[in-house]
C-alpha cells in the first residue's frame, strides 16, 4: 500500500520527542561528571540525573517513533485523517471521548488549534515588554505590552486597549506594591 506522510500533524510530535531525547542525552552524559556510584553503594550526585536522563531519552525515542508511524497514512484518505484527528484529540484533556453529536464540533475546534500566530505574537510582545522592563520599570513596560497585544493581536480600539492596559497595570501596582508590599522592578531613573 502507498503511504503519504502527514508532515504538519507529525512534526510537532517528532519535534517534542527529539527535544526530550536530546535533553535526556545531555542530562545522562553531563551526570557522569558528578559520579554515578557513591561510596558503599550509596547514591552519587550523578545517579538520579543519569537514570532520569536515560529514561527521558528512551521516552523521547518512543515518542519520535510513534510520531513517524502515525504520520504515515494511506494515500488519498483526507476524510479519514480529519476524523481520526478530531476524535483522538478530543479524548485528551478530560480523558473522555465526547459523544458522536459533539465530535464534528470538537474536530473543528481541534483543527483551529494549530493557528499559532496569535500565540507567537502575544508571546513576542510580552517578551519585548520584559526586555524593556529594566529601563521603564514593570508597570510601564507591562502597560505598553498589553496595549500592543490588545491593539495589534486582538484588534481592539485604541481607547479600549489603552484603558485596559492602564487599569491592569495600576491594579498590579496597587496589589503587589501597596497591598502585599512585594516590590516590582522600578524604572532605571528611580
Amino acid at each position, binding site marked *: 500500500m502507498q503511504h503519504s506522510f502527514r508532515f504538519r500533524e507529525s512534526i510537532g510530535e517528532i519535534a517534542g520527542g527529539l527535544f526530550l531525547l536530546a535533553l535526556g542525552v545531555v542530562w545522562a552524559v553531563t551526570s557522569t561528571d558528578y559520579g554515578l556510584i557513591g561510596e558503599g553503594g550509596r547514591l552519587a*550526585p550523578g545517579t538520579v540525573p543519569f537514570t532520569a536522563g536515560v529514561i527521558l531519552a528512551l521516552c523521547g525515542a518512543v515518542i519520535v517513533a*510513534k510520531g513517524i508511524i502515525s504520520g504515515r497514512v494511506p494515500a488519498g484518505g483526507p476524510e479519514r485523517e480529519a476524523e481520526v484527528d478530531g476524535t483522538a484529540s478530543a479524548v485528551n484533556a*478530560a480523558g473522555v471521548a465526547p*459523544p458522536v453529536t459533539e465530535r464534528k464540533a470538537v474536530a473543528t475546534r481541534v483543527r483551529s488549534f494549530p493557528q499559532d500566530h496569535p500565540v507567537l505574537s502575544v508571546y513576542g510582545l510580552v517578551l519585548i515588554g520584559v526586555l524593556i522592563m529594566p529601563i521603564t520599570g514593570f508597570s510601564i513596560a507591562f502597560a505598553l505590552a498589553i496595549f500592543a497585544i490588545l491593539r495589534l493581536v486582538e484588534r481592539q480600539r485604541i481607547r479600549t486597549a489603552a484603558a485596559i492596559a492602564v487599569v491592569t497595570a495600576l491594579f498590579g501596582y496597587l496589589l503587589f506594591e501597596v497591598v502585599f508590599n*512585594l516590590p516590582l522592578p522600578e524604572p532605571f531613573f528611580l
Partner: protein
Amino acid sequence: MDTWSLIAEGWSTAITPMNVFFCLIGVVVGTVIGLLPGLGSATGVALLLPLTLTMEPVTALIMLAGIYYGSQYGATISSVLIGTPGDSSSYVTMFDGYPMARRGRAGGALASAAIASFIGGSVSLILLMVAMPLLSSFALKFGPPETVALVVLAMLSVAGFAGKSVVKAIAMGVFGVIIATIGIDGQSAIARFTFGQVELFGGLGLIPVLIGLVAIAEVLRQTTQGGSEPLKATWRDMTITREELKRTMNPSWRGSLIGFFIGILPGAGATLASFISYEAERRVMKDGAKRMGTGMIEGVAGPESANNAAANGAFVPMLSLGVPGSATTAILLGAFLVFGLQPGPLLMTEQPVLVWGLILSFWIGNLILLVLNVPLAPLFASILRFRYVYIYPAVLLLCLAGAFSAQNRMWGIWIALAFGAIGYFFLRYQYPIAPLILGLVLGPLLEKGLDRSLAISHGDPMVFFERPISLVILIFSLALLVLPSLIRAVRRRVLGVRSQTPMAEKEPVEVGD
C-alpha cells in the same frame, strides 16, 4: 495533647477574623478563577502563591486551599450556564446541569450544586478527622524506603490516570525530576547542571516554573480559543424549589462517601470521583439509563458532592504522607515547602495546630461558598459575559509580577516565560502537565529517600522489597497502573448512556484537580 484538644485549638486558629477573611478572599477568587474557562484550580493556586509570601503560613495555606475548592464551584457555574466546564472535575456536572439550565432551571442546578458541595465538604471533614490521626500514627512507622515507595506510587498513579499516552506521562514525570536536579545537590553540596551560571545555584525556583507551566501556557492556549455565549440567568431563575432540594439530599450523601474514598487515593482525584458518583446515580435512579443526561438534578448533586469530598480527601495523603494526589495538591505541597514546612508523617506531630486549622478552614470555606453562591450565583454568572480578551491581561500581570516577586529578580520572569513556552508546547501536543509538577515537587524527596535507603542497606537495592510496607506500596503502585483502563471502561459506559448533551466549547483543563 489529645486529638480533640488539638482540633479545638485548630478551630480557634481557623476562626480568627484574619483567617476567615483570607478564606473568604480565597473562595471568592477561586470561584471567579474556576468559572473562567481555562483557568483551573492549579492555575489559580500557582498564580496567587506569590501573593501569600508575606503572610503567616497558616493564613496563606487557608487562602490557597480556599482557591482550590472555590474554583471547583466556579467551574460548576460555567458547566451549568455555558456547557463549558472550567475544570475537568465539573465535566460530569454539565451532562445534566446544562440541560437543566436550558429548561430555565439554572438556579435549581446551581443551588443544588452549592448544597451538595457543602454536604460533600462537611461529610469529608468528619472522615478527615477520623482518618488523619490514624494514618499519621501509621505513617510514623515509615522510613526512607517507604517514602521512596510512596513517591513512586504518587508518580505512577498520576501517570496512569494522566491520559491516553502513558509514555508521555512518564516522560513528563521524569522531566519534572530532571528540572528538580538543577542547582546545589542537597546531599553532596555539589552544583549540578548550573553550567557556570550563579543564578542556577539555587535551582530554577518552584514558583516561576509553576507559573510558566500552568498559567502562562494556559493564557497562550486561550488566545487560540473562541469565546462562548452564556445563558442569561436572572435572579428569579436562581431559586431552588422544595422538590429539587429534597432530590438533592440522597445523591449528596452518596457522592460525599464515594468522593472521599476516591479522593484519598493518590492520582485518582476529583474528576474520577465525579464520574463514579454519576454512574452510581444512574444505577440508583429508576430508568436511570434513559433519564440521566436529560436534566436530572441527581446528576448534578451526586458529582458535585463527590468532587468536593474528593478535593478534601486528597489532603489526607498530602498532609499525612507528604504525597500529593493531583497537580493542584502538588502545587499546594510546593507552597508548604516554600513556607519551610515539610509535609509528611511528622507534620501532624510538629505542626498540629496548623494542620487542624487548615482542615477546619475547609468547612468554613464551604459554608462561605454556600452562603455566597446561592444568592450571588447570577452575579458570578455575569462574569461569564466578559470576553477573555478583557481577562487575560490581568492573568498575565499576575504571572509576571508573581514570578518576579517569588525571587525578587528578573530571573524569575525569564524562567516563567521559558516554561510558559515549554508548557504551551506540551499542552498543544497533549503532554499531561500533572506528572511533571509531581516530578518537580517530589524529585528532591525521591533522591533524598533513595540515598538514605541505600545508606541503611549498605547499598543493597533489595531494601525496597524486603520491608513489608514498602513492598505493599510498590505492588499497589503497579496495580494502579492497571486501574485506569478499568476507569476508562466506566467512563465509556457513562458516556454511552448520555442522550442529547450540550456542546463543549473547549476541553476541560487536564491539570485541574
